């Protein structure tokens, strides 16, 4: 089980309380893949950090089966600069699995993200997109029960993004892990989520079930239509460049 119950998170910014997350209740059923979409600053990362146990809620509750393992792909690659790509992927596995098993998983994960040639490269020698793929491989190699991804594909070019989106869906279907993926890209949210959670200003403002089979195509009229509807709701007729959209309005 993975669940937020009336969870809020406040941050103190220069003496002023900022509500990054505001009374969110949301269940992420075991084995489901959920996408969370909303514009920057609306609390997506905060929600993911609560689920990962990296931050405690200021009020409310986070419920997670302690026995279930977690893998996180952060918004930034967060690689250890002193380890090459393969060692970075192996990092969470070290001391837990045998050497042969680790080597096999590292190979598999690097193949999945298309980086077998870069296994000996240091992070400083990788491009931003390559580093992010190593970070994705690191989480995949863990084979976690719960996989949390924070805008994992936003640093990637369109081709690589598309192929890694497919890889993610494949892996989710094979392993039946619980996946929560955060994105600011509505199309990506519709392509990858069994349901799409819509966020605005720290609150969940909608949850849409996407009843389309995988793999989905961006050109599928049903995808296009759903994307347009979610976008319209999130922009809400407001000026998309108006920062007030993300302000702390009380309902």
């Amino acid at each position: 089980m993975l669940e937020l119950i009336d969870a809020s998170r406040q941050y103190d910014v220069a003496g002023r309380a900022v509500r990054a997350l505001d009374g969110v209740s949301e269940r992420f059923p075991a084995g489901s893949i959920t996408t969370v979409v909303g514009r920057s600053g609306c609390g997506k990362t905060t929600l993911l950090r609560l689920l990962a146990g990296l931050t405690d809620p200021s009020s409310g509750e986070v419920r997670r089966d302690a026995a279930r393992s977690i893998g996180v792909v952060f918004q930034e690659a967060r690689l250890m600069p002193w380890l090459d790509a393969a060692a970075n992927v192996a990092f969470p596995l070290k001391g837990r699995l045998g050497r042969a098993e680790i080597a096999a998983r590292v190979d598999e994960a690097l193949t999945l993200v298309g980086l077998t040639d870069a296994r000996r490269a240091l992070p400083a020698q990788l491009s931003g997109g390559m580093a992010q793929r190593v970070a994705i491989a690191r989480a995949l190699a863990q084979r976690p029960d719960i996989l949390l991804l924070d805008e994992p594909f936003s640093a990637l070019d369109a081709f690589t993004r598309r192929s890694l989106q497919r890889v993610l869906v494949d892996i989710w279907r094979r392993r039946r892990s619980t996946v929560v993926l955060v994105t600011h890209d509505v199309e990506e949210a519709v392509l990858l989520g069994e349901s799409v959670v819509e966020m605005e200003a720290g609150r969940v403002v909608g949850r849409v079930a996407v009843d389309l089979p995988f793999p989905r195509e961006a050109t599928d009229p049903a995808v296009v239509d759903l994307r347009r509807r979610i976008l319209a709701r999130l922009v809400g007729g407001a000026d998309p460049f108006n920062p007030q959209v993300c302000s702390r309005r009380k309902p």
Partner: protein
Amino acid sequence: MPARRLLAPTAVFASVALIWWLAGRAGWTNAYLLPAPSTVAAALSDLAASGALLKHTLISLQRVLLGFALSVALALPLAVLLSASRPARVVLDPLLEFVRQVPPLALIPLLILWLGIGEAQKLGIIVLASFFPVFLGFRGGIAGVDPKLIEVGRVAGLTRRDILTRIVLPSALPELVVGLRISLGYSWRALVGAELIASSAGLGYMIIDAENLARTDIVLAGILVIGAIGLLSDLVLRLAVTRAFPWLSADLEAARA
């Protein structure tokens, strides 16, 4: 190290020697206060031929390396302890800060009373001079660890100990290396102070002894040898570090600049 990299420094040293020689020839300098390069070279070759140079160098080298090693052996665990434990910080930080402000040479009388006039006193001065750069460098490196990397360890379920050894300490390495290099340099710089009192050998002793005998050429020869060995030991340390930690080379370049 490619030979081309040595070209510029060699040219600089050669030019200095040339100007030095010309200044002597032109009579701008007093031959007693600043003997000509040829006089110094002659003194150097005499010292080398008699075996005195090797003897003094080996003794000094041993003192410097031993003192430096002692500093490192003290500084590393202490830096880890003070970074990890608040009570240790509260007690030890003010004391260490105090000692840091006192010039090692001012402590020579105390060191003589406590450690006598033997080898321990000489090592003590070198340790006092070289302890703080490596200690502060390592602590700074530990304090500067990226909290985002620590989070990677936390979600991977690493223990506190694993986070220390697998994330914090490797992160601190670049600053530690800078500290090590400064400390090694300070060890050499402390040599003359260390060999000031009751010594009968070592490059520092050789220089002081030559000064008493008004042999400026030997003083200069000693200075040249200390400087050259200092440069050489820094080079060896840098090469060893680049070998052992290839990912550090970029940081080393930055530290050198």
